[in-house]
């Protein structure tokens, strides 16, 4: 029975349970629903939840835990061979799983019977050819031990499948009958279903929070591995970024950080004034029809994928800056430059700054504006001297949030700023950022467990710490500002 069929059975059981629960509740009071504690639908809901949720949770856990257990059990048959190394073991286990899957396919399409499989011997039968028939390509002939392990693996997983089907359906039916018997006239079905809902909501938010912790944990773990292989002093204070395939790389983060901050600075220099002025126009001057057209148009910019901005940088802005500024001024010959990436990233950030600032300016109470107008201020005096000072903390928060986006941006920089790690001031020269180097270090051909690859995690963690700090400061400021008017 496939997983889909199993889930379908559980859901059908739950729906049947819901109908039965409703019937039973109504039946207990002779059809007079006023005599029930909760609405009849609530009783149905409770039965549905008690039938479906435990069964589905069990399925999820089984699917997650069973492979781990089966791996361990089938690898026991490999013990004694020369596979002491963890990495080699992982590789062999991959083969074991693939052969097991191949055997399953062959048995399913009828070309091998169960007795054929149990008689098959790696040293006599041509396993490789048979596996190729099943669509499983093996790099080398398999040893008898591995083949035996694969057979064991297949047996275990088939057994596990059957057990899971039985267990899940049993749990569903047990939940169904247990919750049905609990229904009585005074059973508080509404409260039970409310409580169940709360538990599910909490579980959903836990998933989000735990994932964040998982990400941080994996970053920290790999960073730790990196610092065991490479000196921290070189990483944090090194002025040269020069990874070598053969080892002995210089992996100083400073040129990358400099590039990141330079590009982000240019982007903010571009985005903050334009975004802010646009926000002031939208919030204070624009007529309703104007606003209803212009605001969505501006926010449309936020929906463009960053790779498209990258193309714009690569094909339009880069060559333009090179031909009309860099070359005539003798400042460089490269079409990728800090300025290119900065300007394009600035364009990307405009809607971000403007829509956040717009919200903040709108949140300044109208009574302050009235007060200023009542004293005979003009519109611009009111905005400059009353509205903006009141909105300033919130706007600073918006700018910081934009900055943390700029720091984390990758595609525009890859395509606009180039890949040369350099410490320089010339904005028309190519530079690169932390994010770009994370990509290039991880996508190369180097071995995973080398400092050249693992440095990506150290870079990622550094970036994470920077943007996290910025976000905390920004949110703190924004929240403080909100309190002022509540």
């Amino acid at each position, binding site marked *: 029975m496939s997983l889909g069929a199993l889930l379908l059975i559980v859901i059908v059981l739950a729906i049947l349970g819901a109908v039965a629960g409703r019937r039973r509740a109504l039946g207990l009071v002779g059809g007079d629903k006023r005599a029930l504690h909760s609405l009849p639908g609530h009783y149905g809901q409770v039965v549905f939840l008690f039938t479906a949720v435990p069964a589905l949770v069990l399925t999820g856990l089984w699917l997650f835990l069973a492979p781990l257990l089966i791996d361990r059990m089938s690898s026991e048959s490999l013990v004694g061979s020369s596979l002491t190394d963890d990495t080699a073991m992982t590789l062999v286990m991959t083969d074991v799983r693939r052969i097991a899957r191949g055997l399953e396919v062959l048995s399913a399409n009828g070309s091998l019977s169960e007795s054929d499989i149990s008689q098959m011997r790696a040293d006599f039968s041509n396993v490789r050819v048979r596996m190729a028939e099943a669509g499983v390509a093996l790099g080398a002939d398999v040893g008898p031990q591995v083949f035996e392990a694969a057979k064991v693996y297949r047996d275990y997983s088939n057994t596990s499948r059957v057990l899971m089907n039985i267990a899940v359906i049993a749990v569903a039916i047990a939940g169904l009958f247990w919750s049905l018997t609990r229904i009585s006239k005074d059973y508080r079905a509404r409260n039970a279903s409310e409580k169940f809902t709360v538990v599910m909501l909490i579980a959903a938010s836990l998933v989000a929070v735990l994932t964040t912790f998982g990400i941080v944990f994996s970053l920290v773990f790999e960073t730790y591995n990196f610092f065991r292989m490479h000196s921290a002093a070189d990483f944090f204070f090194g002025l040269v970024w020069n990874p070598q395939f053969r080892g002995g790389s210089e992996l100083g983060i400073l040129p990358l950080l400099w590039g990141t901050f330079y590009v982000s600075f240019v982007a903010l220099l571009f985005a903050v004034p334009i975004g802010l002025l646009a926000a002031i126009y939208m919030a204070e001057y624009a007529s309703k029809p104007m606003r209803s057209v212009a605001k969505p148009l501006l926010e449309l910019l936020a929906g463009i994928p960053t790779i498209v901005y990258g193309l714009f940088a690569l094909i339009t802005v880069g060559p333009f800056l090179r031909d009309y500024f860099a070359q005539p001024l003798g400042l460089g010959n490269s079409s990728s430059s800090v300025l290119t990436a900065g300007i394009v990233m600035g364009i990307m950030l405009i809607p971000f700054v403007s829509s956040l600032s717009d919200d903040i300016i709108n949140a300044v109470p109208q009574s*302050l*504006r*009235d*007060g*200023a*107008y*009542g004293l*005979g201020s003009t519109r611009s005096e009111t905005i400059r001297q*009353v509205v903006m000072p009141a909105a300033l903390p919130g706007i600073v928060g918006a700018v910081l949030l934009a900055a943390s986006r700029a720091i984390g941006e990758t595609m525009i920089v890859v395509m606009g700023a180039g890949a040369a790690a350099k410490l320089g001031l010339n904005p028309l020269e190519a530079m690169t950022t932390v994010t770009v180097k994370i990509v290039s270090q991880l996508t190369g051909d180097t071995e995973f467990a080398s400092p050249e690859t693992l440095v990506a995690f150290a870079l990622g963690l550094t970036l994470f710490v920077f943007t996290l700090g910025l976000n905390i400061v920004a949110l703190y400021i924004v929240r403080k500002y909100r309190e*002022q008017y509540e």
Partner: protein
Amino acid sequence: MNVSVNLENDVDLAQHKIVAKNVQVYYGEKHAIKDVNINIQPCSVTAFIGPSGCGKSTFLRTLNRMNDTIDICRVEGNISIDGENIYDPRVDPVQLRAKVGMVFQKPNPFPKSIYENVAYGPRIHGLTRTKAELDEVVSASLQKAGLWNEVKDRLDEGGTGLSGGQQQRLCIARAIAVSPEVILMDEPCSALDPIATAKVEELIDELRSNYTIVIVTHSMQQAARVSQRTAFFHLGNLVEEGATQDIFTNPQDKRTQDYITGRFG
């Protein structure tokens, strides 16, 4: 008696600070103020009373053209202050509002220091030449608003940190600082406790000698305490206007009588 006085006053406009004739206000399609005629006397307190939504605040706001800031609002008719039509296209609403100050329902000090709050008006209108003059205006305004003794040692602190009643008196000081001739007050005590209300009422009574004050209030006791003349609005109409004592003791219109005796509103 009242009628004859009004007729006589109509002839001599100079006796009235504000004269409104056939004023209509529309919010989009809605006819919010219907054909209001009223004369407001200088150096006195005039109270506008009436049930919620009767148009008294709307009418108050026509007197310094605050309704201009609302897009869909349209005013017809004639309102003149000192004989000059304030809806004349040549009139600059910014200058008009310097002459006709306003205090709002909710205290709305700017998020600046106490000093800066009061100095704001004189600064934007360029009323003082030196820092010393500005200091003088600030302290005089705070004194007139009865706030000086409470804040003189902390002029640099934020205006939003004061209590509600102090904030409202700060707003009155802010309005006085531009030396207006008329002060409009839109339910200035509705957000204040009884003690703060008493202080503001006392202040209004003192300010009467120098300013023409128009106050909108929901409290009939307040109207009776602070005003010399009272106007009763109902459903956008000015039902009755006269000396406060007459309105409260001898109302001419049935609706006025019902309202002040608490039968509706």
